């Protein structure tokens, strides 16, 4: 991390976000939280529209897909340039 010469790294933002340990701590929660948010949205939609299991099931899978997509994107942006 070259923080000593103020202006050299101002040209374009880089997308290397977190080194190893931070990445390890982010990944697990990302997957679970996405699934939970999806399921919660489906549950609320069911509660609102009185259509018991349908939205919950559909949004459960949407949430899981969102979690997997998040994890995949996170790993792709963080391991390409960084030398692990």
């Amino acid at each position, binding site marked *: 991390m070259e923080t000593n010469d103020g202006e050299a790294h101002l040209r374009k933002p880089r997308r290397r976000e977190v080194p190893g340990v931070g990445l*390890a701590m982010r*990944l*697990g*929660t*990302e*997957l*679970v939280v996405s699934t939970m948010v999806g399921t919660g949205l489906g549950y609320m939609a069911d509660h609102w529209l009185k259509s018991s299991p349908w939205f919950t099931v559909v949004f459960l899978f949407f949430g899981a897909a969102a979690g997997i997509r998040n994890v995949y994107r996170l*790993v792709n942006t963080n*391991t390409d340039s960084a030398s692990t």
Partner: protein
Amino acid sequence: MDATAAALIGMGLAALGFAGSGVGLGVLFGKAIEAIARQPAAEAQLAKYIWIGMAFVEAVALYGLVVAFIIMGKA
């Protein structure tokens, strides 16, 4: 059996999901180290898949935790 006691036992059983996560982490990192030892040049490519696999393995344990918390809310 008392309903609260049954709920507490259920919480403990839900937390057993951590065992699966432990097995998964052991297999994952054991195999990963083996693969890197065989082919050290492939480490940078393998790292990506190790992280993705770790996310899924860790998620198993956290799903167990979520189930335990849901049961705690019902009890």
